[in-house]
């Protein structure tokens, strides 16, 4: 490295120390800080809502699916329970009625 460059860099840093004038804060500095704090608070609340809303929607969807599934299962269980509780004769009668569309019982009744 060139020793002149080292010296020039040191010189630049040294002259920079006095090259920055003092900056006075504007009269609204504090008010602006508070406004930004409030703004950040509001936007962080909105961000929280927007961050959670897809998850809430997903949870809602899952809950709806679970409820629908449970209701469907319950209705199926009720039907199988009904079938299990009926006697052999009841089932046979129902089967026979379905097979003949009930017409031979009607004819038999007429005879």
């Amino acid at each position: 490295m060139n020793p002149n460059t080292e010296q020039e860099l040191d010189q630049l840093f040294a002259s920079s120390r006095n090259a920055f004038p003092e900056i006075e804060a504007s009269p609204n500095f504090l008010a602006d800080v508070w406004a930004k704090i409030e703004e950040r608070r509001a936007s962080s609340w909105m961000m929280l809502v927007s961050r959670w809303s897809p998850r809430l929607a997903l949870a809602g969807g899952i809950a709806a699916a679970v409820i629908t599934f449970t209701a469907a299962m319950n209705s199926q269980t009720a039907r199988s329970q009904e079938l299990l509780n009926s006697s052999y004769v009841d089932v046979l009668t129902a089967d026979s009625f379905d097979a003949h569309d009930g017409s031979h019982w009607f004819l038999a009744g007429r005879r």
Partner: protein
Amino acid sequence: MLVERETIERAQAGDSVAFSEIVRVYRKRILGTIYRLIGRSEDVEDVSQEVFVRLYYSLDQLRSVEVFEPWLYRLTTNAAYDYLRKRRRSSNVRMADLSEEQVVAADAAESGRRDDELREHTETREFLDVLLSEVSEEDRILLTLKEVQGLSLKELSKIYEVNENALKVRLFRARKRALKAHEALKKRQPNR
């Protein structure tokens, strides 16, 4: 410390009057540091306000009141770092891009010793800004705090939370990169 420890504790507990007091007391120092770190007067106030907003939202994370000042410096350097990164992304740091203050200074520098001094200061700041925009944001901040702001190694080690030897190594490397950038700039602008 510029404020009583009680004021900091009250601010930590959510006392807005105490927080406003901290802002009032430290704003000048923060404005000066930010100005040196970012090199642009027009954005100084905005970045400084960001420091205090961050301070407000992170005061509860301050473990001990004794380390308040180095911690505030850390928030300041972080805000400057974020600003510089954003600025680099929009890549608007160029010699030709004069700030409002620089334009005014250029107009005013027709004659007189004061104007000459003003112009000299403006040129120094401008050249420093161009030089430091050639190194990383980390190097820029470290070099500015040490060489321009004039912080001691002890103060820097508290801000960076590393020991002085590690800091010396970092400074040495940052300086080497700044020298390299300086040589490259001189080749591009031989009149400097």
